[in-house]
């Protein structure tokens, strides 16, 4: 008898939870997304924009390569963790760039910020960035051709 009651209560709880979830989805599309941590939400957005395979490569390799939209043979290597973006030409590292957001954002959002700025307005990205030589910490200027 008690087992029957327990099963009934559990079924009611599951049904209520499902109802709340379903109603919430209808009223506020994407609301389960809002319940996640900022980092988890940022990761989900990055995965959606990159696609599952490229996102998997990013996680596995620790960086995302974005080809230059204007300079043939140049690739920007964006680290998954905060750090300098590497400028690679014909397989060799030629400079490191540092661009930071005005306010902290989760790591995945930072990767997305670099990618969009490079693809959308590479010239401005290069003007804004501080430029460092491949091997050292000394800044070599703001502009890189």
């Amino acid at each position, binding site marked *: 008898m008690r087992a029957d009651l327990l099963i009934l209560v559990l079924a009611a709880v599951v049904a209520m939870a499902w109802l709340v979830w379903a109603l919430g989805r209808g009223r506020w599309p994407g609301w389960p997304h809002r319940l*996640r*941590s900022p980092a988890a939400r940022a990761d989900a*957005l990055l995965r959606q*924009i990159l696609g599952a395979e490229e996102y998997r490569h990013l996680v596995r390799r620790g960086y995302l390569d974005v080809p230059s939209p204007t300079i043939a043979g140049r690739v920007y290597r964006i680290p998954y963790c905060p750090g300098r973006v590497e400028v690679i030409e014909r397989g060799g590292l030629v400079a490191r760039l540092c661009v*930071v*957001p*005005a306010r902290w954002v989760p790591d995945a*959002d930072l990767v997305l910020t670099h990618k969009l700025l490079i693809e959308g307005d590479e010239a401005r990205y290069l003007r804004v960035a501080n430029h460092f030589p491949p091997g050292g910490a000394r800044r070599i200027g703001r502009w890189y051709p």
Partner: protein
Amino acid sequence: MSTLRVLSHLGDEAHSWDAARAATGDPEALAAVREAERIFAEARERGATAFRLAPGQPAEQLDKFAPDAEQIVIVPRVSGGSGS
């Protein structure tokens, strides 16, 4: 559905609207478009940059709100850093 996402320290804040319904003059859909436009303008005033995203295409920078865009992502203002 179209979506505007603003990146922030909270993760992204999303706002959606139905461009097809808005085109038919649906008041609720038009209100959602106006709200998205307001968020877009506010973010741009803070120095943020907006991009239109479409599957398989590179990001396109937006200076004006595009209600027909499938997805718009707004990234925060950036500056040069030390990155050490």
